[in-house]
């Protein structure tokens, strides 16, 4: 396991572990959702400018578009529900994982960059799906917040499939 997947695994563990320690409240869940999307937007922005592979670029642009779209809706819902997203250890772990990923990606270029970016996208989307299923959706008290996450879930499944497909084509 390389350092990046380790970071993702730690983040996933923190996400999954949160339910055992203390179920996150809706304000914390909203913060996790926004942070998770922002982390992937940031990675996508880097990849869309740095990658020279058109499939990777297209994927990165789609990640920016979709995760921005999800965040607009999450933010609009939080405003409507008068919930102020509340920072928490899970968000901090996700943000740190995202920062470490960007730092690593900044040291790479060409095919090595593409591979590291796409590998991380696979791990990241899997980790977020696990968090949605095990912690975030079951813990949400507000029905609209829960419904938004249920509606968002297929986007993560689609992104994961797309990233896996891309992963299988790289290096060939």
């Amino acid at each position, binding site marked *: 396991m390389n350092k990046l997947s380790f970071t993702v695994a730690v983040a996933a563990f923190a996400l999954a572990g949160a339910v055992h320690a203390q179920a996150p409240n809706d304000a914390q869940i909203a913060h996790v959702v926004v942070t998770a999307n922002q982390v992937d937007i940031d990675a996508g922005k880097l990849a869309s400018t740095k990658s020279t592979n058109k499939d990777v670029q297209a994927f990165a642009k789609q990640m920016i*578009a*979709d995760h921005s*779209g*999800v965040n607009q*809706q999450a933010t609009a819902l939080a405003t409507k529900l008068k919930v102020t997203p509340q920072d928490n250890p899970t968000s901090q772990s996700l943000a740190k994982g995202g920062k470490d990923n960007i730092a690593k990606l900044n040291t790479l270029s060409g095919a090595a960059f593409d591979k590291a970016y796409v590998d991380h996208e696979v791990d990241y989307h899997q980790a977020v799906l696990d968090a949605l299923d095990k912690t975030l959706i079951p813990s949400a008290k507000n029905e609209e917040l829960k419904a938004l996450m249920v509606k968002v879930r*297929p986007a993560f499944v*689609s992104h994961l*499939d797309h990233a896996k497909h891309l992963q299988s084509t790289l290096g060939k």
Partner: protein
Amino acid sequence: MLRLSILVGAVAAGCSATALAASHTVTMDGFAFKPQTLEVKVGDTVEWVNRDILPHTATATANAFDSKTIQPGGKWTWTARTAGQYAYECALHPNMKGVVQVK
């Protein structure tokens, strides 16, 4: 007389079915086209309705049609003019795939 009116009714229904083109709906929901395979007749219309929270497209892989971006809550209609099998996908999420069979 009753029998005659039933007969007339049946003929009328038969005529209208052939004269009027049918309209079909495909929903984009949960990042999937539902139904995934749709069979229509030449002249029928197909309407794609986006029930997801993100934009999608219905883009034929052989350039027969392209909805361009359909926003959440939006729709796009295509009239099937030529028989054939049309595979299509969402250009934004290429693992969303569907087929329209025009007979």
